[in-house]
């Protein structure tokens, strides 16, 4: 997008942050919550009251509110607040890594398919094949090869994200390809790489951002499911899905161990879904009423 075009695209009057927040309360709330969640995850080592691995078996399963533990302790006598912060950290990192890696590869495939029509059929059929496998199956296969761990989860979620991102990118790239500026860029003899990076990619960025944010929520849910099955984070690493899995055994006796991480997963997924919706509303003018 050139500077002139950007000027045209800019709304006539830029509303203040507060006014925007009042007009779009859901978007504002989700953006704020996402920032807070990310901050909590990044600052976990500073915020956490205790060491995440330090246990005190005499406090095992302490109920929330006892012994000065606001959220209680887990079955190993570890502070739930600390575990939750570090669990959030691991879960968010897992989500970001999978979306960036899978989304990045998917975007490259999508651009290649849209730009080089000879590759289109081959690449997209490959993506169709990938799409036909459930992510859990990838998780099982990759965990069997590399051994269970966060890496296995990130890899399987990335693989599962690639075809989705490739399809989205190809779709919006094909639309952009028909625009006059693309013809113009070719006419002045720009190289393929330059056209893709200067003209194609920026025009697809909004749909990539929207999809990435929505996918982030899904990836966290899937990753937690994989961890719940024991394929993800290995003890003593705190990860929300793994924490829920471990606490499930004691559901009748100490429900907080499983319920608290589940609530956290719910909040994270909800926030990023709302944020994705809000982003789509903001970035996709066609949807504006």
């Amino acid at each position, binding site marked *: 997008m050139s500077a002139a075009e950007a000027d045209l695209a800019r709304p006539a009057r830029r509303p203040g942050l507060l006014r925007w927040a009042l007009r779009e309360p859901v978007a504002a709330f989700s953006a704020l919550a996402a920032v807070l969640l990310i901050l909590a995850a990044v600052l976990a080592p500073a915020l956490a009251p205790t060491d995440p*691995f*330090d*246990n005190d*078996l*005499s*406090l*095992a*399963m*302490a*109920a929330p509110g*006892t*012994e000065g533990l606001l959220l209680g302790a887990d*079955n*190993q*006598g570890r502070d739930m607040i600390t575990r939750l912060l570090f669990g959030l950290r691991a879960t968010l990192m897992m989500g970001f890594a999978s979306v960036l890696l899978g989304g990045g590869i998917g975007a490259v495939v999508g651009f290649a398919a849209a730009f080089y029509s000879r590759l289109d059929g081959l690449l997209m059929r490959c993506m169709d094949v990938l799409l036909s496998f459930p992510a859990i199956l990838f998780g099982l296969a990759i965990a*069997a090869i590399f*051994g*269970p761990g966060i890496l296995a989860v990130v890899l399987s979620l990335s693989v599962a994200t690639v075809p989705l991102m490739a399809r989205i990118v190809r779709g919006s790239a094909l639309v952009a390809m028909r625009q006059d500026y693309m013809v113009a860029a070719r006419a002045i003899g720009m190289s393929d790489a330059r056209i893709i990076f200067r003209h194609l990619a920026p025009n697809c960025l909004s749909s990539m951002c929207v999809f990435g944010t929505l996918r982030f929520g899904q990836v966290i849910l899937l990753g937690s499911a994989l961890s719940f099955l*024991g394929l993800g984070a*290995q*003890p*003593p690493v705190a990860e929300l899905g793994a924490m829920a899995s*471990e606490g499930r*055994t*004691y*559901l*009748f*006796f*100490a*429900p907080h161990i499983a319920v608290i991480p589940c609530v956290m997963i719910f909040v994270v997924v909800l926030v990023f879904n709302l944020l994705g919706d809000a982003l789509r509303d903001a970035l996709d003018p066609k949807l504006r009423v």
Partner: protein
Amino acid sequence: MQLSKTRRRTARGLLGGAALMFAGMLPALDAAAQVAPRNTLVLLREIDADRYDPARTSATAAGEAIFLLSDTLVSMDWDQRTIRPGLAESWTVSEDGTTYTFKLRQGVTFCDGKPFTAKDVVYTINRWIDPATRSPVRWRAGSVKEVRAVDDHTVEYELNEPFSELLYQLAQYFASIVDEATVEKLGTNFGVQGFNGTGPYCWASWTPRQEMVLTKHPTYNWGPPIYNNPSPQVDRIVMRVIPEANTRLAAVQSGQGDITQWIPYFALDGLRRIPTLKLTQQPVHFYDHFMGFRVDKPVASDPAIRRAVNLAVNKDAIAKAVFFGAGEAATAYINPNALDYSAEAAKAVPQFNADEARKVLDAAGWTMGPDGVRVKEGQRATLLLYGLQTAINSSMMQAVQADLRRVGIELRIQLWDATVGWGKLATQEFDTFIISYPYVSATDAFSLYFHSANRPTPNRMNWNDPETDAALVAARQALDPEARAEVIGKLQQRIAENNVWLPLMRQPLWVVSSQRVEGVRPHGIYGVALYKGLDIRLTR
């Protein structure tokens, strides 16, 4: 103390709530009675076995049914050390300890009505030790020279060398007598599609991973003398598999099941408070958890590391928090109640002392690294642990992991699902492993795990010591029980001094049963609570 009270109160409240919830799910108590019909005992289990052929499995789950379906020549008393008559009324042992002569009981029949004779014993033992049968526990039969039927009711069991624990092994379910005609007819499907034994119950049907139905053997009256009744008191037994612990407990509470030994420890305290349920314990139970060190791997080969691990782990805290007070810290390699336990050797097992652990590591040159893990000559003090993925293994090993971390040893835990776990435990990939196992006696336990011929499984430590092998042979061949106790006692000392294991926990055996079940007394042979179950009867 204050906390534990609060916690217990909370737990009680929650359990009460859960119990109410289940009660609410059922319209009335009659409904429960409908679920479990009259004179049918519904036994709940955690897992199913792959097959029920005594010669071709070693699973505790298989024993649960095989002890009911068939009989052994001799039986085991509640004390787990006195041998009582079974299919054999009496027996004599030759002077040199190599020939056992069994006098068989008369009037015994198989489920199909065929009379039981000495030929069946000969066939069963020969099939068990035949390499073609591929029994995982063939060694338990001893080094058999020949098993002969002298007449219809006399069997001579001749060994190449004395085997002082033969009778203990013949009491295990592996030596259960099977019917030749049925085995030949079903081939490898024996114990899958059908069974024919002399036990108190007969095979009716089996739906793998769901349920097994057994019906009363009508003429059975030759039960072991440890029971008050020589015959079964219940018409049918339905053995139902419910893998998930909470669901299984809910089934017992709601009356959908009558009895189970598969109780998660955290539930014991709560179950005790439910008036409609009965809990019974077998105090003499040998089923231990241990962590073994692979003694030929870089870090685990260092005796200082193995000693420090033994010193660093607070087993009493694990007994309280992970086993909820139901388990017992294993202070020695063998249970004090087991045959040939050596109290002297138990003193050589290091007991919890974290400071001492740090001193041992310091003295051996393991210096603390920047990340809290000790280093020696560029080698990090890190151990990779393999085990089966169970709730107990996971929480127990995380507690061990935290204890080791405090002294500067890193434990990387990798637990596997049972379907791949046994395969993983047979590899050379890990430095340490966790396993739990049932045993009969010190010689039994040590022969299984420490003989060099049993590498790489079950001797996963790769412990290769000629002195150990010699002691095991001497113990097995000892003619005099005292001589055996001495040689196996010395071996316990040697293994303890080398810290080949970290003995962890002794698993308790509890059985929970519903109000209508009477006469429950857990036995625990090879981990099986019900054993013959002859005194069990239903009041409704």
